[in-house]
């Protein structure tokens, strides 16, 4: 078993679908930060068989839970302070997401007016369907486009 040292302050994202941690690293813009990050791929998991884990040493308030909830609301978020887990945050599908994904509909106004915010609205929480606020085009699903 690979050992990665504990972090003193930051967050640990557990139960990431195996193979998705690197995408998540970029989606959370961790590549642009100065934080110390550990990416653990294909760790053994009783629940999932295999899973990925991200350990990030930084101010926990910098974590965008909406982005994370949209990407995969089954991820476990552990907030670490003083080397201990002080809080477990539940993720929810955000009602609206801004500037995370782009509308692919060539007929949508966002295809020609680049300065417009890319806004998607959760129209069916059960089926986890997001639609473009402007053209109502359906977002096909995060994992499928990756």
């Amino acid at each position: 078993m690979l050992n990665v040292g504990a972090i003193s302050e930051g967050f640990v994202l557990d139960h990431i679908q195996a193979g998705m941690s690197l995408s998540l690293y970029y989606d959370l813009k961790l590549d642009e930060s100065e934080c110390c990050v550990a990416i653990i791929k294909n760790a053994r998991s009783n629940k999932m068989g295999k899973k990925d884990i991200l350990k990030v040493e930084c101010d926990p308030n910098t974590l965008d839970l909406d982005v994370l909830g949209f990407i995969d609301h089954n991820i476990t978020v552990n907030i670490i302070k003083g080397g201990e887990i002080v809080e477990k945050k539940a993720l929810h599908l955000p009602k609206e997401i801004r500037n995370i994904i782009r509308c692919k509909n060539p007929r949508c106004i966002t295809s020609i007016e680049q300065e417009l915010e890319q806004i998607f609205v959760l129209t069916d929480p059960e089926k986890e369907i997001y639609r473009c606020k402007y053209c109502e085009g359906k977002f096909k699903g995060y994992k499928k486009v990756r």
Partner: protein
Amino acid sequence: MRHLMSPLDFSVEELDKLLKLACDIEKNPSRYANACQGKKLATCFYEPSTRTRLSFEAAMLNLGGSVLGFSSADSSSASKGESVSDTIRVISCYADICAMRHPKEGAPLVASQRSAIPVINAGDGGHQHPTQTLTDLMTIHSLKGHLGDLTIGLCGDLKFGRTVHSLIHALIRYPNIRFVLISPEELRVPGYIREDVLDKHNVPYEEVERLEDAMAKLDILYMTRVQRERFFNEEDYVRMKDFYILDKSKMALAKEDMLVLHPLPRVNEISVEVDDDPRAAYFRQAQYGVYVRMALILTLLEVEVC
């Protein structure tokens, strides 16, 4: 301040009120002849349209108001690269209300977010066309006497036909509505209408390819044109354009009180021999369109006529 982006922006009660006002305008046009004196309607049409634009202009002129605007993107500052947001901010300084048609879906919504005056979506790409829906509802209400308990056949281009999408959205709010969706496989109603609208609200519907199979059960037949401008590929358009042609022989299969509606313009999907059939209601529909747009302008401008 209110805008109209989708037929669902009005509740059923508000729609009833609007249709009632439109009916009163039809009966007493002189009472409304000066209701909008001194008010201006801007018609911002980024793609060609004859009847929708003229219907809006006729509506405003009938109310004693005046109109200004443009009828293609080439004759507007859009050709210089101006955004919809900037254009509407400027138009807000010149007019009291704006009707906008745009080939890009969601453009009128963008305008409404930046506008200081009410914006009416006069058609945005293949997305919504709420004033056509108001026209359709008024036609059905006036000629059938009710908006519930109807089997409605929607025929033709159900994929890109925005009038069809808007009409489905509006009609599902009335009781006992059933749809027969008549289209070739390639032009079926989009998934989001089937899943999020029809299935979600448990509205009964069936999908068929042959118009003949549906005729006998319909109270309303809503024909649409296969629109060349919605296709990226000319070959696909040519293959689809003559798929349905309503003629006397097909009309013989229909109920005696069925109504044929069409948003117009038609090309060849309704044979001219059907025009004299008393069930052909599409030219009366165009007249109702003016009354309902008059009612809409009055409502959005909050003009009360005593």
